[in-house]
């Protein structure tokens, strides 16, 4: 295939039109910048929040002690165990929550209960008070897409970004291809924002179905990979995300069940979470996952979630306003299982592992108080950064970083040419699997990648195992030129696999460096089973060096004293 190339110049290039990307584009545009969004799917329904989200994490300064900015910041730090710089969170996220809620209401997203005109708030995951606003977020992405259209912000849907244009010191834009037409894109910008979300499909899925993931299976770590290749730093990449999901369906919704007061039972009829945390089912997510994992591995499974004791109104709120909003198909799933939540228990299990920018996540691209990465002219927002704080974090950091890039662009007239060879090389690399005469389908390779990650860098890790895994990942890497893509869709998946392979290696190398266990199954080292606050209250930092992936430890900045 001989691809056509299209070249774009813009002030702010937004890579990924999920929640953070749309908000960044809106803010950059409103700040006077010319903006372009390159989105792999279609902004109207793309990303983790594409089909709806129902909980918006917020403090509202209502006068309660737990509802202040300071109390919320303390919760943020506690959940992330101090592995983030809360000052960055404060600047990009916390101080803006109230304003973001007003903005969403002005976009037509219903944040309040219509009949009472107040916020419905529930509490889960170790919160000191009810921080989760239950809102009508089923169509939040269409609402954001409308805002983009109103502003005539150019969006190229089905544009999968594969690399950044980087002269070694600064980022000059990004490259990618259209998964429907095959066109190649070279987009040059004064500032580039990565807002491409998390990385899934890297570990085996308990259902055996690779795309049955908790977070979107169509986010594949391109942000980590492109930032890393450009020389930027990543942090805490060994700390994966694991949750509790309905057995068989890796669906979001746990916060709705536990927030409404659901119980978790083991097969002996014991509410097992009380053994693991004083808050029982209200414990942080990683404790819920670890507790459930222990119950199963020690022979007390199957485990179940039980909401039969809820009042009629509470059950109706759960099944009408929460579950079908957060995961459109979950209620249908429960029905197809032949269950009724007012009558039956719902079996649950531990989810697959993933790199997810969920509440309390500590892994991703390192950014500063302005959202800038450690490379000039490269910014990042949302689930691919550290810190990131799920939906409200994606809304707020996206908006803050968009504003910042517009400000930076006002003072800069630079559209650099250069790096032409790099662009030509990327074009060659991108189409190679398609142009190859014959080869193997990407799926075989991706299955092998998951097998290695599960066997050696999975729920329970040790040094010998991780080292073995790294060796096997290297071997797999030497064979990637055997993959043949028959069409553009397969080409997209093949390139996703290549990114996932590099993320896998980064995770493994970081996991070797963190010689302690932390955050439940997020990083459980059988050879170092305790949490070591003395030596490891540090971030692991990954950077590309002359010898490949280099990992170092960096003490976290303790800003809690300032809270």
């Amino acid at each position, binding site marked *: 295939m001989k691809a056509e190339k299209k070249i774009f110049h813009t002030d702010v290039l937004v890579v990924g039109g999920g929640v953070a990307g749309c908000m960044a584009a809106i803010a950059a545009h409103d700040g006077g910048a010319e903006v372009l969004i390159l989105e792999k799917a279609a902004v109207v329904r793309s990303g983790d929040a594409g089909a709806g989200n129902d909980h918006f994490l917020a403090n509202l300064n209502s006068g309660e002690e737990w509802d202040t900015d300071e109390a919320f910041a303390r919760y943020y730090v506690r959940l992330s165990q101090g592995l983030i710089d809360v000052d960055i969170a404060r600047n990009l996220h916390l101080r803006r929550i109230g304003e973001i809620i007003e903005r969403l209401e002005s976009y037509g997203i219903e944040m309040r209960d219509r009949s009472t005109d107040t916020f419905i708030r529930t509490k889960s995951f170790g919160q000191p008070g009810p921080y989760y606003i239950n809102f009508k977020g089923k169509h939040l992405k269409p609402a954001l897409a409308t805002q983009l259209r109103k502003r005539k912000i150019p969006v190229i849907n089905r544009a999968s970004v594969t690399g950044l244009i980087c002269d070694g010191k600064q980022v000059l834009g990004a490259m990618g291809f259209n998964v429907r037409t095959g066109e190649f894109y070279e987009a040059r910008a004064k500032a580039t924002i990565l807002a491409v979300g998390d990385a899934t499909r890297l570990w085996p899925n308990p*259902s055996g179905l690779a795309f049955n993931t908790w977070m979107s*299976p169509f986010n594949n770590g391109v942000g980590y990979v492109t930032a890393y290749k450009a020389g930027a730093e990543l942090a805490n990449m060994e700390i994966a995300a694991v949750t509790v999901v309905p057995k*068989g369906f890796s669906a979001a919704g746990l916060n709705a069940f536990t927030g409404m007061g659901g119980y978790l039972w083991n097969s002996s009829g014991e509410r097992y979470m009380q053994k693991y945390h004083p808050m029982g089912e209200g414990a942080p997510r990683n404790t819920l996952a670890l507790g459930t994992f222990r119950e199963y591995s020690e022979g007390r499974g199957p485990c179940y979630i039980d909401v039969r004791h809820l009042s009629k109104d509470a059950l109706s709120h759960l099944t009408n306003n929460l579950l079908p909003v957060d*995961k459109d198909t979950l209620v249908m799933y429960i029905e197809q299982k032949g269950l009724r939540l007012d009558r039956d228990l719902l079996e649950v299990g531990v989810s697959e592992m993933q790199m997810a920018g969920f509440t309390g996540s500590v892994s991703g691209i390192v950014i500063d108080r302005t959202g800038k990465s450690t490379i000039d002219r490269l910014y990042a927002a949302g689930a691919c950064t550290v810190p990131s704080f799920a939906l409200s974090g994606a809304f707020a950091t996206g908006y803050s970083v968009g504003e910042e890039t517009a400000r930076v662009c006002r003072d800069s007239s630079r559209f650099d040419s250069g790096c032409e060879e790099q662009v030509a090389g990327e074009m060659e690399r991108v189409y190679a699997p398609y142009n190859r005469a014959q080869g193997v389908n990407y799926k075989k390779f991706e299955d092998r990648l998951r097998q290695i990650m599960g066997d050696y860098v999975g729920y329970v890790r040790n040094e010998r195992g991780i080292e073995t895994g790294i060796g096997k990942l290297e071997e797999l890497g030497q064979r990637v030129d055997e993959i043949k893509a028959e069409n553009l869709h397969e080409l997209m998946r093949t390139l996703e696999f290549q990114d996932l392979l590099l993320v896998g290696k980064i995770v493994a190398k970081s996991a070797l460096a963190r010689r302690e266990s932390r955050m439940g199954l997020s990083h459980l080292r059988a050879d170092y089973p305790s949490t070591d606050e003395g030596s490891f209250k540090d971030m692991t930092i990954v950077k590309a060096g002359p010898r490949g992936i280099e990992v170092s430890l960096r003490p976290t900045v303790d800003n809690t004293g300032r809270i």
Partner: protein
Amino acid sequence: MPPVIDINKCKGCRKCYNNCPGDLFVFHPRQKLPELRYPDECWHCGTCRMDCPEEAISIVFPMEML
């Protein structure tokens, strides 16, 4: 076979093809019909079901998930 399309209801508006986050549909212009080409890659997100103006799509979970 996660989303099942009722071709008697489908009016060929392409919404499912345009909005699926996984690029899982192809569209046959002559017959004016979508086809779910990659069922194994479905996230069961429900976008195609929700956005279909004709209510022509229902989600049927595969037996491995039930």
